């Protein structure tokens, strides 16, 4: 058996297990889109492309072990809530399952087949608030809709498991989303997909530590003019942990704006990955998109991979992207030590200072001890 055949057979076995495990208890949910996508796309080649640095198969196996149901919506205010586990909501939950496949995001489709917990949230006021807690042991899916001119504030904590949140912002709606991911020993896949209609605003702020394997995908689809997306945050990954953060910023329509700023710190034998992909579609002129990612590797064995990418299919756009990976600044260290601050403390202060430039939410500063 060749290596390719071996990989193919592992893939095939795993894919079959996923397909066989499709959740049947919620017949009112149409999971066809996910099933069809998995059947036609198969699984990606391991250690290639988007999965160059993260163990895709382990994440799939992790998802297969998650059989519990959970109620991860901790609290809400001014939000219409429907839960998947309430049969009377059945007919109302259809959209949760039938959302079309996003293409080459197999874990999203796996979630589509396997989720047995979830909520559908509708915000229609300017004071809507939802707190989503961790749902260890389960595959869950949340659908959040923010009505025209409404504003939804979401605080989410995710540690492990497999979770997709799909967010639709109508015209001139606002979504303020704070995502914190504490340290965890398990494997976890998290994906946030946002669609922005005309004049809508997304402010996403994330703070994360690592886990055994943690993959965090953020997909933003800018569908309307005057839409704005501001993404910021930072991570601190240590021990033997792994954190892979991938952002896909798709400007489908022009006269729109996106800004991304992320700082990452890796220590010990940890590995961080950041891939920031900006795509400006044909015709999406007058789009403005910026991305910066700065990383500091604190130890010789730590690794920070940074990959900013731009694909522009139209003229008249303003785009910038940049990524750096380095060490703590020697001059700053010298200044602090020359004021009597010992090296260890100086390094800790500089590390915190580096993260503090981008992490400002209460949850983020407390998670990263800033």
């Amino acid at each position: 058996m060749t290596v390719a055949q071996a990989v193919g057979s592992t893939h095939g076995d795993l894919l079959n297990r996923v397909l066989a495990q499709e959740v049947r208890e919620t017949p009112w949910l149409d999971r066809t889109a996910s099933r069809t996508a998995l059947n036609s796309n198969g699984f990606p080649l391991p250690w290639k492309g988007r999965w160059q640095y993260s163990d895709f198969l382990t994440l799939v196996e992790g998802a297969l072990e998650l059989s519990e149901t959970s109620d991860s919506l901790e609290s809400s205010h001014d939000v219409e809530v429907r839960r998947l586990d309430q049969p009377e909501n059945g007919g109302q939950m259809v959209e949760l399952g039938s959302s079309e496949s996003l293409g080459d995001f197999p874990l999203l489709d796996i979630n589509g087949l396997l989720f047995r917990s979830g909520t559908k949230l509708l915000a229609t006021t300017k004071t809507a608030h939802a707190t989503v807690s961790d749902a260890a042991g389960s595959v869950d899916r949340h659908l959040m809709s923010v009505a025209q001119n409404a504003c939804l504030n979401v605080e989410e904590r995710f540690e492990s498991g497999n979770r997709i949140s799909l967010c639709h912002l109508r015209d001139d709606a606002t979504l303020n989303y704070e995502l914190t991911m504490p340290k965890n020993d398990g494997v976890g896949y998290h994906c946030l997909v946002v669609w922005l209609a005309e004049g809508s605003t997304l402010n996403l702020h994330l703070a994360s530590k690592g886990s055994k394997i943690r993959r965090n995908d953020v997909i933003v689809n800018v569908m309307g003019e005057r839409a704005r997306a501001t993404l910021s945050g930072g991570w601190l990954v240590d021990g033997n942990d792994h954190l892979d953060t991938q952002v896909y910023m798709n400007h489908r329509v022009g006269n729109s704006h996106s800004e991304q700023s992320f700082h990452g710190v890796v220590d010990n034998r940890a590995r961080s990955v950041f891939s920031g992909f900006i795509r400006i579609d044909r015709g999406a002129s007058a789009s403005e998109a910026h991305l910066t990612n700065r990383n500091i590797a604190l130890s010789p064995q730590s690794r920070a991979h940074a990959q900013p990418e731009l694909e522009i299919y139209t003229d008249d756009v303003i785009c910038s992207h940049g990524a750096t990976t380095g060490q703590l600044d020697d001059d700053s260290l010298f200044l602090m030590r020359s004021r009597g601050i010992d090296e260890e403390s100086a390094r800790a202060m500089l590390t915190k200072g580096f993260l503090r430039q981008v992490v400002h939410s209460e949850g983020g500063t407390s998670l990263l001890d800033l």
Partner: protein
Amino acid sequence: MKLLELRGLVASVDEKQILNGIDLTVNAGEVHAIMGPNGSGKSTLSNVLAGRDGYSVTTGDMELMGAPVNGMSVEDRALSGLFLGFQHPIEIPGVTNMEFLKVAIDSHRISVGEEEMNTRDFMVQVREISKRLELSTEFLKRFVNVGFSGGEKKRNEILQLMLLQPKLAFLDETDSGLDVDALQVVARGINEFRSDDNGVVLVTHYQRLLNYVNVDFVHIMVNGAIVKSGDAQLAHEVETQGYAGLGEA
């Protein structure tokens, strides 16, 4: 008390010899000025004294507060009483001036067996010094030197000096890039700091800072060596004759 003693100090930067045998003694209660043209080794001397990486002593002796310095870490030199004023104050994004100052003063206190400074006392003291230096207290909340003008950065250096109260202040071109008003504020800070118990070394290109700070000794440094020493009058000679007239050529 001898605060600094250099005997035949030869030092290199990245294996290139810059200091070619410096002799200098600074006692408590004295203010010295080291003057010299660009490239004479003044900043190298500051960095060698502070123990910066990449600056190494080849031969000669260097003592701070009566104890040999070689082998001491940067922070231990600072804790023994040395303060280096930076020619180009460094920016530290993400670290506020307030926490930087607090950790610095606490490091000094802990090193002599004292407790960390009470936050209220610290605030009172820092605000009071800021006021004297005409620095808004807003500066304390901002990141260290980030977005500060040249004058503000230098006043921030003097703020650190006045707060930490070192035994020996070695101020590397603290006067450079200052307008007259800022220069006077900085000079006032230095004058308030100086006492019979401490010493100050002003490293400078020009005589103008010495219009505001009375110095006891002036040393002319050329090509990594002190070529002439004298009293304040020597600074005036530099002003009229240039360094060339004092032995550079």
